[in-house]
């Protein structure tokens, strides 16, 4: 029974108007992986912000690190004490070298006269990366690395600071399954080094893989801390949500006529020979590893990027789309990967965000916008999609992830598209909201929309899709109908490009996908 390294009691945090944390407690033991979970807005980030010294807890909160009061004023205090945070946005320096990113803030890179000790810095960085088994050049500027590699640098940084507790806020949200596997390995090594990890995630299966104990928050309140053995997914969910969630009903949808047909679509350096058909009333998922080219494919279909060869046929008409403008006109909608970066105008209201896609339809004959129509439209979706808070003029920047995503979807539904493409629709969204969105997608399919889901979240893929296409290195490695599909089969295709049972060469397999 290892003793506790972090102990938090009676921890409260009030923001003007919001009590983000109410007398929360949390205890992390040496060398354990401790999951901190809760719905969007439950207070997870707030809690870790306090641990990190970004925010300060209210009076009367107790915060012990290694048994002593932590009194952390600035983020760097926490880092130097041995609490390292890997933020969702990684929070590194794109313009600086890997070495510097790893060592920034360490006393020992300073020479006399405020000089930097480059040799020391590079040495430390090299050493740390080596012992973690990451193969990354310490001299390249960070911006040259893929997101996954950047995450590894962030971890290396934590190790370089001899972190005793590493906090990871949704570390897998921008990682692919294989990279997640790597992360698990790293976490195991860290545990062996007797380093504790506080792990925040919305993805059930990964929580149950890595975490030893769970602390659940709900609306800023402490629900409880549980051993993995005491829990199962449903129990955990009901703890988080405060009620049991009904599962998405998966009654078969009636497959309508061919809506979207992709033939031999290729783009140098992104994807090759993509072929598949999407019918009215069905949900097809494309899954695979990060960087397998799915988003690029979606972009190509939506006219955001050129493709070199192949054809896209929508509802019998061969398309030659050059811009998203035309795509929208034709009836294709694309809910992008990042709702905040690509989806919303955060400083604008729900109304203006929803109406943006069809402004021209809301104008009178003099081409001037009718604000009344705009409002009616917004209210319609606020109620049908149950967007909360239901304040039409609220700036979307002040909504939780789930509801932001609903606004983006609403924006696209308002264009009444024939084909709806959603890219990572539930990234960073809590389980409750996630299920709602899955239900929504099924419902839309039932209403006869053709839906293409791009997702790295296998449970999601399995939950929503009628058929699953697996992409690997820019090609479609294979297809699985949902009743045959399971995680192993998908991973196998994604990583090796072969079906678990019959081992067919990739080429013929993707051919197979066509003549369905």
């Amino acid at each position, binding site marked *: 029974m290892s003793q506790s390294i972090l102990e938090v009691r009676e921890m409260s945090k009030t923001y003007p108007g919001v009590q983000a944390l109410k007398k929360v407690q949390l205890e992390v033991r040496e060398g354990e992986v401790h999951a901190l979970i809760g*719905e969007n807005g439950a207070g997870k980030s707030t809690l870790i912000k306090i641990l990190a010294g970004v925010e300060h807890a209210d009076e009367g909160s107790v915060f012990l690190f290694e048994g002593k009061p932590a009194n952390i004023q600035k983020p760097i205090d926490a880092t130097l004490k041995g609490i390292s945070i890997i933020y969702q946005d990684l929070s590194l320096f794109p313009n600086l070298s890997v070495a510097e990113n790893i060592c920034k803030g360490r006393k020992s890179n300073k020479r006399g006269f405020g000089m930097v000790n480059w040799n020391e810095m590079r040495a430390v960085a090299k050493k740390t990366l080596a012992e973690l088994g990451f193969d990354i050049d310490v001299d390249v500027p960070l911006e040259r690395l893929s997101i996954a590699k950047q995450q590894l640098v962030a971890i290396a940084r934590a190790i370089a600071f001899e972190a005793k507790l590493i906090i990871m806020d949704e570390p897998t949200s921008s990682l692919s399954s294989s990279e997640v596997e790597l992360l698990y390995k790293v976490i195991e090594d860290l545990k062996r080094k007797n380093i504790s990890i506080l792990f925040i995630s919305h993805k059930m299966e990964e929580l149950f893989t890595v975490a030893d104990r769970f602390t659940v928050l709900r609306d800023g309140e402490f629900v409880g801390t549980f051993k993995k053995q005491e829990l199962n997914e449903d129990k955990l969910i009901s703890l988080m949500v405060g009620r049991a969630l009904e599962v998405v009903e998966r009654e078969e949808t009636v497959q309508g006529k061919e809506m979207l047909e992709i033939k031999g679509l290729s783009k140098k350096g992104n994807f090759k020979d993509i072929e598949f058909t999407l019918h009215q009333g069905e949900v097809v998922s494309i899954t695979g590893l990060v960087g397998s080219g799915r988003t690029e494919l979606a972009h190509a279909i939506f006219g955001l990027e050129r493709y070199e060869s192949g054809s896209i046929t929508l509802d019998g008409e061969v398309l030659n789309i050059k811009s998203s403008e035309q795509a929208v006109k034709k009836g294709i909608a694309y809910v992008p990967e990042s709702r905040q970066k690509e*989806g919303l105008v955060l*400083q604008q209201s729900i109304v*203006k965000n929803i109406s*943006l896609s069809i402004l021209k339809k809301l104008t009178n004959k003099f081409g*001037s916008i009718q604000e009344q129509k705009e409002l009616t439209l917004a209210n319609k979706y606020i109620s049908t999609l149950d967007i909360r808070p239901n304040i039409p003029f609220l700036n979307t920047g002040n909504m939780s992830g789930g509801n932001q995503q609903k606004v983006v979807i609403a924006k696209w539904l308002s264009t009444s598209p024939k084909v709806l493409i959603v890219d990572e629709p539930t990234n960073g969204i809590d389980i409750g909201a996630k299920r709602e969105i899955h239900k929504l997608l099924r419902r839309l399919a039932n209403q006869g929309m053709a839906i293409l889901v791009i997702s790295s979240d296998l449970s999601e893929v399995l939950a929503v899709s009628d058929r699953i296409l697996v992409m690997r290195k820019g090609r479609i490695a294979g297809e699985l109908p949902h009743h045959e599909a399971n995680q192993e089969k998908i991973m196998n295709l994604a990583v090796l490009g072969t079906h678990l049972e019959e081992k067919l060469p990739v080429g013929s397999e993707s051919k197979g996908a066509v003549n369905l």
Partner: protein
Amino acid sequence: MKKITQQKEFGIGLVVIILGVILTVMSPAFFTTGNILDILKANSVLGILAVGMTLVIITGGIDNSVAAMTAAVTVVISKLVVVMGSGTLSLLTVFVIAILVGACFGLINGILIAVTKIPPIVTSLGTMTIISGITLYISNGEYVNSSMLPAKFIAFADYKIGGVSILIFIFLITAIFTWFLLKYLTVGRDILSFGGNPTSAMRVGINTTKVQIFVYTYMGLLAGIAGIVQTAYNKGVDPNGFSGFELTVIAAVVLGGANIMGGSGSILGTLLGTLLLGIMQNGLILAKINTFWQEVFVGLIILIAVSYEVLKRKREEMKLSKVEIEV
């Protein structure tokens, strides 16, 4: 309807009013119809340019070449009126050409910025230098004075409606139309959305290239109008009487509460900003304040007004994050 105190323009409005009151007390000559009209007339060029610059700044851009463009247009006008002589019709053609020339300059800016993706501040720096160079070449730095301008033009310059100079009307019409464009026309919304988040704007099928080109072309077009107004106000043309004016224009817009980072800005605010600068110039003289101190005052007001804006924005953000977030 929001409370007035919550209106974005409240801060700057307050400053204008306070300054106005102070000056009225200090000098009887200040708060008179005549003087107010003088202020408006004297600042119609600034106002027109600031209105255009508001759109540019909303898109997160900046146009350093406004002054150069306006100067260029005035020179074009001077050349044309002399050639084409008098006559209402020829005068009209001159105006049309002037506006087109302005629009062309703007178009070039727009294309350079939207297509080559050079940061606007740099692009417009380049075009500014080029345009003023060419202007100087064409005009050979010679100025034109009223005696060289056709009678018709002078008549236009002096034309009044209900005792109010036509130049003031031109200014106000430009402002009102642009306000309408921003609030009720789709292009206006596209501009605001683009300013708020270019990627999202692009994703929903807004042709962002078009939006940028439009904004800078519109800026150029207004520079064309400003050129006409300037020539009419001066009843003459000074090829390099405008150097450095772009900064004043930007100041007016920023005073009006537009966010230099893009995404927000309002015509009403910009009008108030213009008015503020105008009132200061005028009032400080009436208040017999030493010419040297006038600049200092202007600088101070800019800092005060803007820091007020910034503080307000911060406070709002706080307020907004109060909204309870649930799922």
